[in-house]
């Protein structure tokens, strides 16, 4: 596992802005690294902060949450709740010694295919710098 230097990033995207933005990047054939896999939710407000803990525990080297720009949430407020929850979760993670580069949050709108590429590349690079996050992985040692 750990010798795999290609980072693995799990991303949670809201259906209306960020997922659409990622689709747009696809439609516009904008190339970016394949190390990031997307889970589609209806709203960034749906993303339970414990998902992040779980993703890291499952073996993700980095996590990204992306939603609509403030004020653009399809559900009006979802991304505001997400912003609060994750501003706290981020602090908690860093406090227990999880490398800050492993947790990321972004606003990507349906029209920002190019920005999506920037975000992905950035997040993947950071995860790469931080290195494989083996310490927290559900270890099979006692298996």
């Amino acid at each position, binding site marked *: 596992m750990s010798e795999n230097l290609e980072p693995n990033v799990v991303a949670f995207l809201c*259906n209306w*802005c960020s997922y659409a933005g990622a689709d747009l990047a696809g439609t516009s054939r904008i190339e970016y690294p394949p190390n990031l896999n997307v*889970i589609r939710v209806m709203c960034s407000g*749906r993303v339970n902060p414990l998902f992040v803990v779980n993703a890291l525990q499952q073996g993700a080297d980095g996590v990204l949450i992306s939603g609509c720009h403030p004020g653009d949430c399809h*559900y*009006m407020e979802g991304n505001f709740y997400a912003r609060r929850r994750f501003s706290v979760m981020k602090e908690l993670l860093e406090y227990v010694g999880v490398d800050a580069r492993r947790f990321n949050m972004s606003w990507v709108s349906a029209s920002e295919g190019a920005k999506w590429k920037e975000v992905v590349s950035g997040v993947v690079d950071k995860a790469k710098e931080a290195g494989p996050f083996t310490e927290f992985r559900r270890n099979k040692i006692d298996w």
Partner: protein
Amino acid sequence: MNNKPKIGVYVCHCGVNISKTVDVNELTEYAKQLPYVEVARDYSYMCSDPGQLLIKEDIKKNGLNRVVVAACSPRMHELTFRRALAGAGLNPYYLEIANIREQCSWVHKDKSEGTAKAKKLVSAAVAKARLLEPLQEKEVSVEPATLIIGGGIAGIQAALDIAGAGFKVYLVEKTPSIGGKMSQLDKTFPTLDCSACILTPKMVDVASHPNIELMTYSQVEKISGYVGNFNVEVRKKARFVDFEKCTGCGVCAEECRLAGRVPSEFNMELGNRSAVYLPFPQAVPAKYTIDPQRCLMLTRGKCGKSPKCADACAPGAIDFEQKDEIKEFKVGTVIVATGFDVFDAARKPEYGYSDYDNVLTGLEMERLISASGPTGGKIVLGKGEGEVIPRDIAFIKCVGSRDKSTGNEYCSRVCCMYTAKLAHLVKEKIPEANVKVYYMDVRAFGKGFEEFYDRVRREGVRYIRGNPSEIFKRNGKLVIKVENTLNSTPLEDEVDMVVLAVGLEPRKDAREVIDLLRLSQSSDRFFLEAHPKLAPVDTATEGVFLAGCAQGPKDIPDTVAQAKGAASSALVLMASGKVKVHAQISFVNEATCRGCGYCVEICPYTAVELVTVNKMGNEVLVARVNEALCKGCGACAAGCLSGSIQQKSFMDSQILQQIAVLGGK
């Protein structure tokens, strides 16, 4: 029913769109050995009929109870495949889509990488599919009525179409008259027919149509509810003129003490009106309105001995006591046709719009040229004695368009042609005038546009390629500093008059509409359509449609076309009379709910409430979801500490399965 998962996986080649970067055979073989996968097939176009037939047959033959389609974005074909499932008698929500096109094959080059990622996406989809549950789509009835916000040509056209189809229309216009910007234009390009002549009949039709309730000088205050059942509150501002009694004779305006002393918005403040006024002669409704900011009675409480308008009004329509009224009604659909603002030329100080009277905007020029305008159609500078006819007239294009410095990167699409039109009209009225047009590019893309552009040049209008850097005054004349980029010579042209071809901008009050209807904006700040190609008049909010420049700059024919599009989209809903509401909504496990009310606080739609239930003889609070109001955002689910409130199709259990696969190496 025995619900042990029997999953079918269907890998789409999408021609070569997917297969060129993803080894579809390898992917299919991989899918075959995933747990609970019964069959896995690949096909050139899954969305095609034969593709869908594959799925349907497998469902029937192999008794599949879950389907995973590895193809394009769910935003593209989720519905298509749901229908396929339903067609084969399987609940449409037993479908999970792995997006291996937009987010895999189209964004990666290396085939092995692409294939590897596709495998992960598919196996995550399979993992989630295992836990999918059947959902019921509820239907709600659609109120057979439409609210149209904005009474410009877009709103008018949409209103006429919908009313013509026999449905009720509430047309709400902010200003005292419908007609919008089009009513201010003189002629229309490229055909040069008179704007008023083609618009007025439509305005009259609107006023007289039995199905249309016209609310001018009114504003939408509140819209609640959901598709098919919007509750609308409209504020009808006090006109201080009794709508029924007013005959539109106009005596009041003549008598008004401020007659000719109030700048007229319609004439771009080049001309004046009274405090009690009709915006323009052909205004609809032909009912007078008292301007509360100007009227002496309303501002100071007295107007001479007694207000002359009131004295003069035979039917006694003047009523200074009139109050705003709130009108509430229910509609099934909404069309947003709020139009645009013209770019404020003062934001390009280098062009001296705020410094020099003889620097005008396009729309001001329209009024100047218009026979119904302040000068009766004479192109003149100055007033009375000082009145002179300009000889050298310059047009500057792309003012506030295609210009990062103003934040407007987009092309306003009409300026090229209205410049050509105005140039032509100038030539027509002042044949000896020499007219120059300073341009970056000429975009004459529409029907008859290029021909018209040629014609105008043949008429002697000179096109100079260059973006003026500055306009200043030198001994009474305006000097345009510009570089002719075709022969790269710097010029300082002296002219009498400059017309700035200002672009189109989102309305300043767009925010109000956004908050009203939860619309979103595209990067150009115009309202965002649901899909740029396939749903250009729909919005993210079901039952709400866009028409005209509210969605982006357009000329009249495009606006009318889009208005008709919006009208037909609204009609589709109203004609069918019912619409399916979200199935992927939240639900509460009352057994574990602790009734803390966090979800109630969080829900943006007040769809969750706390109710008292009896648990084994004890009265306890639990949350409950109103299914009609829930929009399925899931914010409550993420906020619930005990995981007692969940969102169907996006349950913790399902998402955790995806995480397990995508997180794992």
